[in-house]
């Protein structure tokens, strides 16, 4: 519970008072003396202990709820001791007794009851606050996870892309139904792949390229002659398993930051190849565009998509392949940008 919480303080006080009443009742019933005297001692000891412990808690551990380690124990002991001494004074004042303690069994018995009740109540409050703390922690973690999922989905189903695609479809439905149907099929395949990408762990490279084709076909309808693309997948690599939609953010970036800002548009080439590495054959996946290039695109371009996209690819590579996988972003010599993902061909199939 963060900072000073007057309500929890009050709740603790009330609970303590109820406990004290119960103790006084039990002592009265077992014939330890008049009920009002018992109540005076019990409430005096209990409420003083509560005040010392709870206020000490606020002073010693603002924020976390309970002081850590030995401090907590010392605080409770100090609270109980103070409560016992001051509470006895209050009880004596009420009953008018000069005797040190309320009932015939003497100081030991009252002290034992005080310590047992004090420790018990403190433990009860402590575990209650722990449980609340844990609960709050879990709720926060759940909120964070949900937010991350939402962000990922929003990045994949970029609303701008979606609505522009729908706007194009709306036009084609009236003017060119067969083309509208083809576009709709690509959109369906793209949406299906995007929505299930988080579930499947791998799919063949041929599927990956098909999904890229869906996306690029959608973009080709929208951008018209401003977009040309080429997908190069050697026959031998079609069956290689890769994480689904790994290249998607790279192609999206190539369009968004490379081709879209450029009046004349450009060309996107996606190529799969292999090359020998130190510990075996490496799979090289390259997304190349002839767009505006890294230099002209401001690093923090207008939307949240760009950085998130690259970060997401890096993160996925790191979790799946550790340090053996790399993502390189370089300014191509002939203008444009080239993004290359490299990882060991063997580690692909688990």
């Amino acid at each position, binding site marked *: 519970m963060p900072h000073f919480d007057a309500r929890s303080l009050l709740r603790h006080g009330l609970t303590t008072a109820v406990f004290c009443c119960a103790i006084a009742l039990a002592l009265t019933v077992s014939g330890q003396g008049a009920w009002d005297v018992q109540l005076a001692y019990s409430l005096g000891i209990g409420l003083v202990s509560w005040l010392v412990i709870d206020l000490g808690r606020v002073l010693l551990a603002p924020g976390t709820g309970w002081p850590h380690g030995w401090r907590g124990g010392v605080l409770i002991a100090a609270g109980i001791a103070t409560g016992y001494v001051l509470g006895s004074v209050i009880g004596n004042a009420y009953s008018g007794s000069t005797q040190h303690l309320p009932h015939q069994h003497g100081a030991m018995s009252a002290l034992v009851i005080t310590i047992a009740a004090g420790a018990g109540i403190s433990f009860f409050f402590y575990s209650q606050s722990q449980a609340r703390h844990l609960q709050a922690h879990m709720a926060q973690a759940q909120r964070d996870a949900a937010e991350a999922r939402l962000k990922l989905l929003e990045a994949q189903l970029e*609303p701008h892309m979606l609505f*522009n695609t729908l*706007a194009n479809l709306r036009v084609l439905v009236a003017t060119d139904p067969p083309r509208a149907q083809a576009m709709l099929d690509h959109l369906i395949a793209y949406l299906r792949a995007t929505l299930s990408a988080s579930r499947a762990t791998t799919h063949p490279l041929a599927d990956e390229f098909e999904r890229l084709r869906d996306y690029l076909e959608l973009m080709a309808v929208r951008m018209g002659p401003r977009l040309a693309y080429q997908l190069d997948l050697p026959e031998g690599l079609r069956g290689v398993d890769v994480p689904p939609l790994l290249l998607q953010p790279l192609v999206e970036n190539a369009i968004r930051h490379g081709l879209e800002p450029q009046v004349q548009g450009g060309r996107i080439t996606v190529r799969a190849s292999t090359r020998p590495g130190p510990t075996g054959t490496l799979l090289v996946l390259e997304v190349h565009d002839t767009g505006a290039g890294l230099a002209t695109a*401001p690093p923090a371009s207008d939307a949240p998509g760009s950085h998130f996209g690259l970060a997401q690819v890096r993160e996925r590579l790191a979790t799946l392949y550790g340090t053996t996988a790399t993502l390189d972003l370089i300014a191509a010599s002939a203008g444009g940008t080239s993004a290359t993902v490299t990882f060991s061909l063997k580690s692909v199939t688990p």
Partner: protein
Amino acid sequence: MTAPAPRALIAEDEPLLAAALQHALAQAWPDLQVVATVGDGLSAVREALALRPEVLFFDIRMPGQSGLNAAAELADAWPADTPFPALVFVTAYDQYAVQAFETQAVDYLLKPVQSARLQRTVQKLQQTLTHQAPAATDFEATMAQLRHLLAAPGIAAPAPASTPAPLTVIQASSGNQIHLVPVAEVLYFEAADKYVRVLTAGREYLIRTPLKELAAQLDAHEFWQVHRGTLVRASAIASVTRDEAGRLHLALHQRPEPLAVSRLYAHLFKAM
């Protein structure tokens, strides 16, 4: 005398959508004559200046420059003797933009454009065009909203991930040296191609940091944006002069050259 048929320009980079908007407008507003359709933000300004239509439909995300920047550039270059055209922005999805548009000085259309919504926009445009009288206040309102839109996060300016620490020293390289120029000595910053010129009383430096990024790290009360490409130290301004065309120019205390004030930012200068 009957008013001539209103003319419109469409700036939209997606060819199908441009054609569709033109088609929908032909049905919703048969009198309107679409005089040009362009596919990027640079041609939009050029064609609008050449043709001077009464209505502009600008897509927000376009190659070359955004529809917002195109409108701002157009406002600066627009001749004073012709009323500024009615602006309608077209956007597929920009949550920030839609919020910013709530003030309604400038209309907007969401893609896919639906007939009923287009009809409302057309009615509004027709009203604006027939009540041409308060053009000056219209222009002021349009400028105010453009300023607002250009400053809104996510549209033209990058959404600030974190507020950067205020800049105190500019590091400018020249040859194999890096000059450290205290911001306190800088009189103005001016965007020039891929560079930003940094001007002090006696010298000029070039840096590569974009003006927008600089602006975010400078105190907005100390440095005023007077033009899309100019940030000037307020205390360095000696006077403001209005020329025959109604444009404002600044004279500085410690530099001889005058600085142009964009019409977008002319509101900064008012006699007290």
